[in-house]
């Protein structure tokens, strides 16, 4: 670990990717994600990497697709409207099992919406925003340090499972500054080019590699789908992450992720000090969703409160996980780019 550096969230995304071994970045400007591209444009040439400003998000994500299919750590980042444009290629990558790390600094929608922090892309990211049956591993860090810590993991898992991985941030994490400690540099030359990469036959023993998501024979495509599903089950089993803060068997269980969880922590600390029976479960992976952990924590809870900067998306997964009609489910949210304040959350939790 190196010294602590005060850094903007978006810039930390870039630096963390560089340290993880990413040397290829393709992007298109959009608020509030542009600083990631700007940072990479400045940083990558210093370490022998390449930055390309693409002509659109469509193009950017396809460049990532090419570089990743060729076996390299590549990245693009955008914000909601740009992320929507990427869905076709993401579906292709999932189908063709191409690993990549994609960052979505979520802003208010739908449509052009606004540029303020939001969580309304939850469905798009976790349920398969593009066509077909597929899943993405979605990390939702809540501090800049957690962004930095998760980055090497994101690449490792992307390549381990040959699947796209998304870092779900929001405008607040992207724009704020905080002290972070970075991990050491991983030498990209030491990251092996996988056997499956389309990198020229001479790199993998003379037998040709084909990377495709196409199979015109339905039975074969069905088999491929089941194979993907098996992989997703394995990811669910092994890669689900969450954190919990509060009393062991809370009467009130709060569920929130990312920035909302962080703001809620202020309220939780106060309420716990006041002796309340409360706790917060924070999914770190939005997919796979921490179903079991949530069900366990909810066992004795009367109230299950879901806080989201959306009009209610994750709450569907919360209900499916707890699967108990006798619980009281409450949704409290802000769609459209409005952020929660700590006092507001505290008052809501007290008031009920």
């Amino acid at each position, binding site marked *: 670990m190196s010294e602590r550096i005060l850094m903007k969230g978006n810039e930390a995304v870039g630096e963390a990717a560089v340290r993880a071994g990413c040397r290829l970045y393709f992007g298109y400007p959009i608020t509030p994600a542009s600083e990631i591209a700007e940072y990479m444009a400045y940083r990558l040439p210093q370490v022998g990497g390449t930055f390309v400003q693409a002509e659109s998000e469509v193009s950017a994500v396809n460049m990532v697709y090419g570089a990743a299919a060729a076996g390299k750590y590549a990245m693009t980042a955008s914000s909601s409207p740009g992320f929507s444009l990427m869905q076709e290629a993401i579906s292709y990558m999932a189908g063709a099992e191409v690993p990549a790390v994609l960052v979505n600094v979520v802003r208010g929608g739908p449509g052009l919406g606004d*540029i303020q922090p939001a969580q309304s892309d939850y469905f798009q990211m976790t349920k398969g925003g593009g066509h077909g049956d597929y899943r993405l591993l979605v990390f939702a860090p809540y501090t800049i340090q957690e962004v930095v810590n998760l980055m090497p993991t994101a690449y490792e898992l992307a390549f381990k499972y040959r699947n796209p991985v998304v870092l779900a941030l929001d405008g607040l994490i992207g724009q704020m500054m905080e002290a972070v400690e970075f991990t050491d540099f991983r030498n990209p030359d030491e990251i092996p080019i996988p056997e499956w990469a389309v990198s020229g036959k001479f790199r993998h023993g003379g037998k040709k590699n084909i990377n495709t998501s196409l199979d015109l024979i339905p039975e074969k495509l069905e088999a491929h789908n089941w194979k993907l599903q098996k992989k997703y089950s394995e990811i669910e089993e092994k890669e689900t992450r969450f954190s919990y803060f509060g009393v062991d068997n809370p009467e009130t269980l709060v569920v929130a992720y990312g920035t909302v969880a962080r703001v809620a922590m*202020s309220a939780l600390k106060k309420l716990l000090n006041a002796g309340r029976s409360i706790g917060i479960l924070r999914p770190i992976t939005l997919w796979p969703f921490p179903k079991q952990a949530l069900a366990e924590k909810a066992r004795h809870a009367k109230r299950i409160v879901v806080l989201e900067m959306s009009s209610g998306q994750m709450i569907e997964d919360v209900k499916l996980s707890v699967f108990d009609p006798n619980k009281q489910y409450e949704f409290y949210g802000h769609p459209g780019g409005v952020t929660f*304040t700590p006092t507001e959350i505290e008052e809501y939790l007290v008031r009920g």
Partner: protein
Amino acid sequence: MTKDLVVAGFGGQGVMLLGQIIALAATEKGLNATWLPSYGPEQRGGTANCTVVVSDEEIASPLTDKPQFAVIMNNPSMAKFEPKMAAGGTLIYNSTLVTQVPARQDIKVVAIPANELAEQAGSARSANMVMLGVMAWVWRDVFTQEDLLTAMVHKVGDKRPQLLEINKKAFALGYEAAQKAI
């Protein structure tokens, strides 16, 4: 210890920089700090603001709806943040530009003629550094003057020695004024 501060003014008054210097000083001291800007169209022409949280513990929310401290550089920011101040909080304002004097009785109000003092130091543009000097006094339980001055140099660089001199002078005038006022 957890303290928060809102710095608000016109874009161009250096309010973002002021907040960043304080966050950097805290980081360099081994404290935790967050700096959260307003961003987007809000910044263009209108008001810009940032929130700084400094703590010796892990920081939960980087945003605050009831600031304990505020540095207010113009009228629109006064209108926006005076009502939000936590009871017992301290509101410091730039009395050269702010004509709308705060009315609340439950907060401490400190008037600092920041532009005037900055001009004395050599440039009205250093009004933010006057306020940095003020904060050095207000948060003297957290920072030494040296802490903040070092962070200032790290942030703005020392490539333009003349400007640095003006900034340091402005800082000193702010510190002095705060000592007298509080």
